[in-house]
């Protein structure tokens, strides 16, 4: 077996990080967990971030809010706790449908050392059994973007009921349509009992124990991974199920762990895999031979780079990622052919210098950088869309490729004198 990118030296950078904090995860988590409310204990900045990052405001029923700290909360901590209890009581009274309440730590709450773990215990005792109160950190000083989902799921693990059942647990907040596809594929393979963390509703909360095997659906779940292992569950090491190859290897690894033969998997996935391969190939025509540069965003970068390199024929210039988890990223790095630079952390100005020097065909970056780079004549892909769009498993593999192909095609269409492209989507 080749070592892929496992021996590539990692550029470690400190400096301005052009990334979201973990609070941003609430935007998809609150949609996934339909009886949960996310109460950020923070500042006006936190509230403003959430509504700005959400882009299109989700006004229908926001199941998240911010308890905004005010001057008087900073003066006396006892007051802050009393205030928090009051806000929670009002909120739960107003929202009797809420079964899980997450107190979410922010930069200010952590700097003033407001103990949300104790607050969660206190409030849990008060509102049990109807509402369970948990806490996690989404602060920028502790977490980057998708790490908010990680700390959220990790906070749920100690509270999961114990079970000795032989079972599979899928970990990571997948869009409902993708979760259903995963269940259907696994059932085809012969695994009927599949639980998900997070569950859509509190009463579907999975149980866990030494006979639980779990597969991660996202590569950014390091803390959750550690918490699950502390509960005795066993990890099924596999690449992230992105692209045809990633999905195949992920399913194979799960089947192996459950003693199911490869032949059985092959039989079950033959049709969707062939369909996905054909679809990806069509989109990949636009991507073949093009170069890509990843700015750090979601920790999905190594997996995405692997997909673009191995299934779409792209050349990867640099894989920037907020954090490179030795264990969880290993399967991706092993697959990636050597060549790309690896960078962890960020000094945005220096990294932009490298982007300008390389002039990649596509730069995957945050919303704050995309238009400025486009104005410099570069083509970009907003990284956040890769997190907000269903991209996992066979049926979405071509959609994933399409997210990268569309900006390139658009540039070709708009380029003066360029031949008009077929409207193939």
């Amino acid at each position, binding site marked *: 077996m080749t070592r892929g990118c496992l021996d590539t030296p990692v550029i470690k950078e400190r*400096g*301005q*990080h*052009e*990334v*979201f*904090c*973990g*609070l941003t995860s609430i935007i998809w988590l609150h949609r996934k967990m339909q009886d949960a409310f996310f109460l950020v204990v923070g*500042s*006006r*900045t936190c*509230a*403003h*971030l959430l509504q*700005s*990052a959400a*882009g299109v*405001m989700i*006004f*229908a*029923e*926001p199941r998240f*809010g*911010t*308890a*905004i*700290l*005010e*001057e008087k*909360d*900073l003066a006396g901590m006892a007051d802050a706790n009393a*205030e928090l209890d*009051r*806000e929670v009581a*009002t*909120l739960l009274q*107003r*929202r*009797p*449908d809420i079964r899980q309440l997450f107190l979410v730590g922010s*930069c*200010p709450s*952590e*700097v*003033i050392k407001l103990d949300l773990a104790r607050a969660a215990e206190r409030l849990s005792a008060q509102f049990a059994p109807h509402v369970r109160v948990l806490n996690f950190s989404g*602060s*920028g*000083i*502790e977490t*980057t973007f998708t790490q908010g989902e990680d700390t959220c799921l990790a906070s749920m693990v100690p509270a999961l009921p114990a079970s000795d059942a032989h079972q599979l647990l899928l970990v990571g907040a997948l869009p409902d349509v993708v979760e259903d596809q995963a269940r259907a594929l696994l059932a085809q393979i012969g695994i009927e009992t599949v639980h998900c963390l997070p569950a859509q509703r509190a009463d579907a909360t999975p149980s866990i124990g030494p006979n639980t095997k779990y597969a991660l659906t996202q590569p950014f779940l390091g803390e959750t991974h550690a918490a699950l292992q502390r509960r005795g569950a066993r990890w099924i090491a596999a690449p992230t199920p992105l692209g045809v190859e990633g999905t195949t290897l992920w399913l194979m690894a799960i089947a192996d762990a459950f003693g199911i033969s490869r032949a059985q998997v092959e039989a079950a996935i033959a049709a969707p895999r062939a369909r996905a391969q054909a679809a990806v190939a069509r989109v990949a025509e636009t991507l073949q031979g093009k170069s890509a540069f990843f700015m750090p965003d979601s920790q999905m970068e190594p997996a995405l780079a692997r997909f673009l390199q191995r299934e779409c024929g792209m050349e990867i210039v640099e894989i920037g990622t907020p954090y490179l988890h030795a264990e969880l990223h290993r399967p991706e790095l092993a697959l990636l052919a050597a060549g790309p630079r690896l960078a962890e952390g960020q000094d945005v*100005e220096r990294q932009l210098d490298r982007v300008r020097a390389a002039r990649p065909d596509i730069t995957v970056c945050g*919303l*704050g*950088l*995309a*238009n*400025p780079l*486009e*104005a410099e004549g570069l083509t970009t892909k907003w990284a956040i869309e890769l997190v907000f769009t269903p991209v996992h498993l066979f049926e979405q593999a071509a959609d994933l490729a399409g997210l990268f192909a569309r900006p390139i095609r658009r540039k070709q269409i708009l380029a003066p004198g360029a031949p008009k492209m077929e409207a193939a989507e």
Partner: protein
Amino acid sequence: MKLSLWTYEGPPHVGAIRVATGMRNMHMVLHAPQGDTYADLLFTMIERRNHRPPVTYTTFQARDLGADTAGLFKDACRAAYERHRPEALLVAASCTAELIQDDPGGLAASMGLPVPVIPLELPSYQRKENFGADEAFYQICKALAKPMPRTAQVSCNILGATALGFRHRDDVAEIRQILERMGIAVNVTAPLDAAPSDIARLGQAHFNVLLYPETGEQAARWLQRSFGQPCIGTVPLGVGATRRFVQEVATLAGAAPILDETRLRQPWWSASVDSTYLTGKRVFIFGDGTHAMAAARVARDEMGFDVVGLGCYNREQARPLRALAREFGLEALISDDYLEVEAAIADLAPELILGTQMERHIGKRLGIPCAVISAPVHVQDFPARYSPQMGIEGANVLFDTWVHPLVMGLEEHLLTMFREDFEFHDAAGPSHHGAKAQPAPSQPQTSQAQPSPAAAPQPAPAGAGDAGNIVWLSDAERELKKIPFFVRGKARRNTESFAQTRGLSEISVDTLYEAKAHYAR
């Protein structure tokens, strides 16, 4: 601690970033944790700016807190200066950095940078975005503006426009044209488009024009005190205000009150017969104080609307807005809690909302048309075309924008006449809109459709009183549904209060029509 689901204003450092981003050759170093860089996307995405805001974020993390965050700040400051070579440097702390008390101002001052360093105090736990912009601009003026001889030609400065401002780009262009037509030179526009070296020459102008009190009032006052520059107080929003503005400028500058009205169409558009249907339309107005007050005057005096609600989210403007509301016979709504605004709108059931991005969502939920008149706004409110709110073209734009969401004159009648036509019914909405907001589902209960009974705190709707005890008989309920959706809320409300004043406990078809006759005008 105050629970907030959506906010009208960001934190004060975002206001300061709006000032810095509007300027040229200015750079800002913000002591802030990872994540605060989200502010960049407001400018690059919502306003579609083609460059990054000139802000360096120090990006401290938890592991830095026990160590040397002050050192981190100084390194970031030095690197920012070396890379960007600005004419001046703003330094500030975001909410989290305020707590660790590193004193960015003092640190930066001690570094001996060869350009002016302007420290900002932005109390994040007390104040908000508009204050941050106003304060930043004031501190910049105080630090950089120098006493200078007046220009030979009569000239003025245009103050208050910032990056991410609602139509600031076009308002400034429109007002500049008006001033120049009067023979008045524009010395500097600031903060938008000004470099620190331009700020230095503010004192050359004979007077100031303050377009946005929210973001330029402190600076304008300081310039008046320090350099004796009087300030034009009228904000030229609407035809009347624009004419008053020109008069005021003429008096102050000793110039002739010339206003080119050849392209002014709004008064005729408003007078033409098709606009008859606008008469007495009930509008609810909410926004920043300046835009809300101006919109109220335009709505009443230039559009013939009936203003039924008026409010603003910035307390700084509460006093003048309350006074104006009294003049309109209304109780002003001063609140930055959008749930409270939503409850007020649901209660009043207006036919049109003039508001912000927030009210657009409220309107969508309640099935009430909405036009946006004030920040906060979203990407669709930064149009490619020239679209000022102020001056002559601004008045035209206001007419078009406010009328667009409504069902047009004759169409309104047709909907009333053929309300049971299966294709041409009220739920189909105005025919010039491809897709429309769904009206709130008509409910069998007696009370007005309320926003998200679960999410919204339910302050007892003023005036609704005991309407909850009045029962709609099923015939009357069916009859009510035949009334087009855009007046149904009003009809329901009127009928209920009519029934209440008559001490009725049931509403029949007759009650409905008695109420209609009673309120006829």
